[in-house]
């Protein structure tokens, strides 16, 4: 038997036998003359040469190449139609040391996945994209692609692609090269051996960029599809060589591989013990004094606070809830939300109770804090008999009086203005409520304010405002204790 040396063999990054295929495990499922097989070989060679087989993760979405995992002995993730660039983004971010290759066809990348590829490129994700442009939908049997040539007949352009109906062929390499972030973009062809050799160099370079930690690289490969084009493999290759480059010129559209800085590595994560502090989660803190000495008085305060946006409605509620929590009570705070936050009216529901709170929605308040007249109109009738109504006005408007509730009418906003900032009207009102009802200790209110108000100046204004509110209530003869 003659001895021989192996001059050329199957790339190591391919499986020896294609056991993931149901049958014909010695050959690929690609048609004779198809470009996929060639590009697979170029990629496998590059993986071998760069010594990255273990690190490589191949992402293959819908298209003829969806079964690339039959062949590549690397990590493989099959993904949804068009979403490979999004999938690749997250794989690379989860595993920064892996080499992530997104292998996409023209329907996948340039039609249904156009948003994902554009944004992955624009973020400069550190991935490598191999984009097979054969100007047709192959797997689904020959429908028009975004890259189909003008005049080209497909099953969904039976009269030829028209610029008036389907628009012009989409030039992906040129389009993405208009972005700032990509490092390397080249269009190559599989039109003859010379072009294929160049395609091999481009593929290797695009992958090597990732090994070097650089950002986004893409190689667009003009590729024959003899079966769907209804050409024999030789004529199909001629078309790639002679016709396609008239629309899709070959060449390098972006090359910053020399000057590009490596994408920064994610910083080392903090120790787990630091996480509660980072989240401001008070794990392990001792209970406050108030919490460990639960009040024996039965409390069931159901407060509705309402006014214009900007009057501090939500903040008033928050101080009340925080103080209640500090006092060892069960609390809930529920806001109106959305556009109302930006203008118009705002309201919130606050409950403070000795027992667990069933509904955080306050439909029958026993305290209404109305910071404007529309709020008073809207909610006055809902107040429980014997409850409290605090109104931000010198007197209740005509027809609004209710004999069965306690009422404090005062121009709280004006009182706050006298203290230096009309926005503290909410705190003046809160002070009056606290004085009149005798609920919550001064300590709890102070603790709440210190938790919620970060500015020293505002803390001082709010303290004065609360004091002013208490005076108002006392002067009106409302003093609980």
């Amino acid at each position, binding site marked *: 038997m003659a001895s021989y040396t192996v001059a050329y063999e199957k790339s190591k990054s391919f499986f020896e036998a294609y056991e993931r295929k149901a049958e014909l495990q010695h050959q690929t499922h690609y048609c004779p003359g198809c470009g996929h097989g060639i590009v697979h070989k170029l990629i496998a060679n590059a993986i071998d040469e760069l010594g990255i087989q273990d690190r490589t993760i191949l992402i293959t979405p819908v298209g003829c190449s969806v079964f690339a995992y039959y062949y590549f002995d690397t990590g493989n993730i099959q993904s949804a139609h068009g979403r490979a660039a999004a999938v690749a983004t997250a794989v690379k971010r989860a595993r920064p040391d892996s*080499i992530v290759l997104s292998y996409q066809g023209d329907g996948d990348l340039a039609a249904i996945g156009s948003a994902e590829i554009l944004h992955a490129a624009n973020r400069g994700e550190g991935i490598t994209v191999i984009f097979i442009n054969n100007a047709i939908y192959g797997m689904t049997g020959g429908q028009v692609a975004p890259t189909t040539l003008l005049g080209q007949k497909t099953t969904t352009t039976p009269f030829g692609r028209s610029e008036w109906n389907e628009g012009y062929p989409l030039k992906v390499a040129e389009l993405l090269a208009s972005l700032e972030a990509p490092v390397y973009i080249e269009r190559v062809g599989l039109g003859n051996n010379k072009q294929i050799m160049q395609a091999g160099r481009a593929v290797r370079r695009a992958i090597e960029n990732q090994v070097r930690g650089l950002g986004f690289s893409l190689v667009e490969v003009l590729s024959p599809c003899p079966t769907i084009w209804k050409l024999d493999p030789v004529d199909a290759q001629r078309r790639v060589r002679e016709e396609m480059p008239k629309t899709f010129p070959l060449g390098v559209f972006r090359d910053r591989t020399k000057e590009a800085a490596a994408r920064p590595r994610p910083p080392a994560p903090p120790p787990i013990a630091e996480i509660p502090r980072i989240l401001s989660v008070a794990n392990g803190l001792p209970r406050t004094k108030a919490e460990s000495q639960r009040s024996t008085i039965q409390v069931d305060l159901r407060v509705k606070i309402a006014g214009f946006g900007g009057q501090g409605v939500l903040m008033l509620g928050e101080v009340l809830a925080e103080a209640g929590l500090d006092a060892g009570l069960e609390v809930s705070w529920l806001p109106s939300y*959305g556009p109302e936050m930006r203008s118009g009216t705002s309201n919130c529901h606050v409950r403070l109770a000795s027992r667990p709170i069933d509904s955080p929605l306050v439909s029958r308040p026993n305290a209404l804090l109305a910071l404007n007249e529309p709020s008073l109109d809207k909610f006055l009738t809902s107040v429980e008999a014997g409850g409290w109504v605090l109104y931000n006005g010198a007197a209740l408007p005509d027809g609004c009086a209710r004999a069965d509730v306690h009422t404090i009418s005062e121009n709280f906003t004006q009182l706050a203005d006298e203290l230096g900032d009309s926005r503290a009207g909410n705190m003046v009102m809160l002070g009056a409520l606290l004085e009149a009802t005798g609920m919550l200790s001064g300590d709890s209110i102070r603790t709440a304010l210190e938790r919620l108000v970060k500015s020293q100046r505002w803390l001082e204004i709010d303290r004065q405002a609360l004091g002013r509110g208490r005076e108002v209530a006392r002067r009106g003869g409302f003093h609980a204790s």
Partner: protein
Amino acid sequence: MRKQLTKGNEAIVKSAILAGCRTFYGYPITPASEIAEAAALYMPQAGGVFLQAESEVAAINMLYGAAAAGVRCMTASSGPGISLMQEGISYLAGAELPCVIADIMRGGPGLGNIAPEQGDYHQVVKGGGHGNYRTIVLAPDSVQEMAGLTALAFDLADEYRNPVVVLADGYIGQMMEPVEFPPASAPRPAPGWAVQGTAEARRNLITSIYLEPDGLEAHVRKLDAKYRQAEEREVRAEAWRTEDAEIVLVGYGIVARVLKAVVEQARACGLAVGLLRPITLYPFPSGELQRLSRRARMFLVVELSNGQLWEDVRLAVEGRTPVELYTRVGGNVPSAEEVLAVLWGKARPLAEREELVHG
């Protein structure tokens, strides 16, 4: 440990990070945006990844990639965004990838409005994407549960290798209540099946394609067996004062909170009323409802959707007991007084019938 006043949406993110999640991909939408905002603030500080994707479609596929690579990951959205994610959720379930999705429901259909509703019940609980799959669905009714059920969601997602949805409404997301958070756990190691770009994991493959009918049938049966197992093991519900209940209210989320107040008020009026609150919407607490139907003379389902929950309750009760329905939609939430009035209206004919029978 000290309880902290925390917003529902924020509790989800804090709990996720404490549960070892370090990956969030999302897209803003009211009333879920605080979740993305909190993730943007905390994830990078915790050594994690936050990215606002170009769309919900991209975001859910980023979860597909992160989960395939073996890390705990989550996203959050509301009605319209969840609709966009459905294809990706089907792929995640098909490829058996764990992830957590928070849906803070708003009013629909279409653009609807941003007020609280429960109209996503069908698209989330029944699995709104294509193919034979289910998602496990947890329905918190308090901020404490927003935290607790988010942590549980990660564990269930890992155990069943399946997407888990935390389904809340705008009010549960926006309101603040005291929360006690658990201690921080370290991110778990990547599971053995994950594609990690290492020699050990090189042969791993994540896919949802099964070309041969027999292969796909076997895969669907395997998924189905997981769902049967979840139905046996993971059902959670709160039975509130149901021991002697002749009328059982059924509701979840913010509605269940209102219904607790209704139970108190109704009992004060002499009606033997209880509440069954499903905590898992899938698997659904059908067994518990069947058990209650032996005593109960009537169920009243209250929901912020057009009878979507009602269908499941009727399926569970199998016609043994009348199942009445009261709904508010469009962003309206019924008050306890309103539901009590409805309850009276429905209980009276029941009582009169009884008198006819016994009298």
